[in-house]
């Protein structure tokens, strides 16, 4: 197994031009192999935080470090999975070709590349659909393709920006379970942005709560030893209420 890198967000603030400060004083350390959810009300700057980690935008102050290396732009060590799977996939490429897209630069040997692509598609249960075009897939299958395209790159961090927000409840539940299984198998860091408290508690072992913007900051860093398997688990509702309270109180101030 490769050695994944640790992510350190050091005292980051972000404002666009002369606009208000969106994020202020974000200071977190995410160690390799953790599954972290970033939770917050809409407009709290969750997506800005994701864009910062991905390298699409640069912090106004502070640094984002991958082990001791500064993040300067987007790259395949921090692959982003977008919510808008329809636009994120390339419609002129088949499922397999989409997954192969970024891999072309890494694995030169065609057969080896193909094998890796097929393996990964097996992990996301798309083996029967490899030659279909995105337009022929359901939303859940499109999002599986996008996840496969991300994990095939073997990134240090899989950065997921509300990936299941546009899916129906049942598909969503399935994909959450599958994602956890993939994570348990591969073990790299997943940063998962969501506004769904239940989802956060069910899939991750650490929940970061952002206060409402402007000047959003981390108001809660909730770590759990074990994930909740099910909402009926003991302690789930207590945890749920605790996070809900911290979001509520951040709204008032």
């Amino acid at each position, binding site marked *: 197994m490769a050695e994944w890198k640790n992510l350190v967000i050091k005292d980051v603030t972000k404002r666009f031009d002369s606009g208000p400060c969106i994020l202020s004083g974000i200071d977190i350390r995410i160690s390799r192999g953790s599954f972290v959810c970033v939770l917050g009300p809409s407009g709290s700057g969750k997506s800005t935080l994701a864009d910062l980690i991905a390298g699409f935008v640069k912090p106004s102050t502070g640094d984002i470090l991958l082990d001791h290396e500064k993040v300067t732009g987007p790259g*395949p060590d921090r692959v982003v999975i*977008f919510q*808008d799977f329809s636009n994120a996939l390339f419609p002129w490429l088949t499922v397999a070709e989409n997954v192969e897209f*970024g891999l072309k630069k890494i694995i030169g040997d065609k057969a080896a590349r193909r094998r890796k692509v097929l393996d990964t598609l097996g992990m996301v249960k798309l083996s029967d659909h490899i030659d279909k075009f995105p337009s022929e897939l359901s939303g859940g299958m499109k999002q599986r393709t996008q996840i496969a395209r991300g994990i095939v790159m073997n990134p240090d961090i899989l950065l997921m920006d509300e990936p299941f927000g546009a899916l129906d409840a049942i598909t969503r539940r399935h994909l959450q379970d599958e994602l956890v299984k993939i994570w348990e198998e591969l073990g790299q860091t997943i940063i998962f942005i969501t506004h769904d408290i239940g989802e956060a508690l069910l899939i991750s072992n650490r929940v970061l709560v952002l206060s409402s913007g402007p000047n959003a900051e981390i108001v809660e860093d909730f770590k759990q030893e074990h994930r909740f398997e099910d909402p009926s688990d003991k302690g789930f509702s207590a945890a749920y209420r605790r996070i809900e309270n911290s979001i509520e109180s951040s709204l008032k101030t």
Partner: protein
Amino acid sequence: MTAPKKIIYRVVSGAISVAVFVVIWSIASTLFNTPILLPSPTDVFHSAMSMLYEGELLIHIGSSVKRLIVGMAVGVPVGALIGCAMGWFPTVNALLDPYVRMANSIPAIALIPFSLLWFGVSEFSRYALIFYTVSLCVLLSARAGVRSVSEIQIKAAQSLGLGEKEMFVRVVIPAVFPSILSGVRTGIGLGVMVIVAAEMVGASDGLGYLIMEGRSHFAVDRMIIGILGLGLLSLFLDRSFTYIVEHVMPRWSTKRRVGN
């Protein structure tokens, strides 16, 4: 609808359309009763058949199509290239935009006297007109296509490690390709129009010539044959282009993009 049902439906709707047209025409020609001005469908059909047998009709169609193809073969790549460059690089766009606006506001037909003046009554002057029309048309849709490449697509490719140059080749061009194809489709329509106009003003063959010659000989049947032939040709070119895009290269069909 299933595929065979769709075909039947198309054939039926086509047949009904033709029937409606022919019936209205027959009634009109009977009512006016001046065959010199409006011959009956059967008369026109007979002359069309004899022109077909003598090979005359095919020669005219062939010359028009040849001009169209030559003009497009040069116009499409040039238009696509400049259009993509204008869409991708703001500087290129700023430099060329005034000319594109200007060209776009003048109907290509108004430039026919110009091409006659510069290139004379020649094959080259017709090619030049088609080239101009088609390249402008493809340029506009390629530029619009580049501008509509979704930001998420670009971000996704960046996140997968693509640099600026690779992005252009592996994301922008494929993403724009359907727009270019739809520009080509519009270009075919406009090209047909321009070629006919050019043939009317100065040529010795082609469908436009056929119509004009019919007028000077007061042969309305030949004019009608030219007009209908032109309509059918343009419909045929349009339909076969769409068919090829959807069946031979489905990857680049706009249909793949919609609802996706």
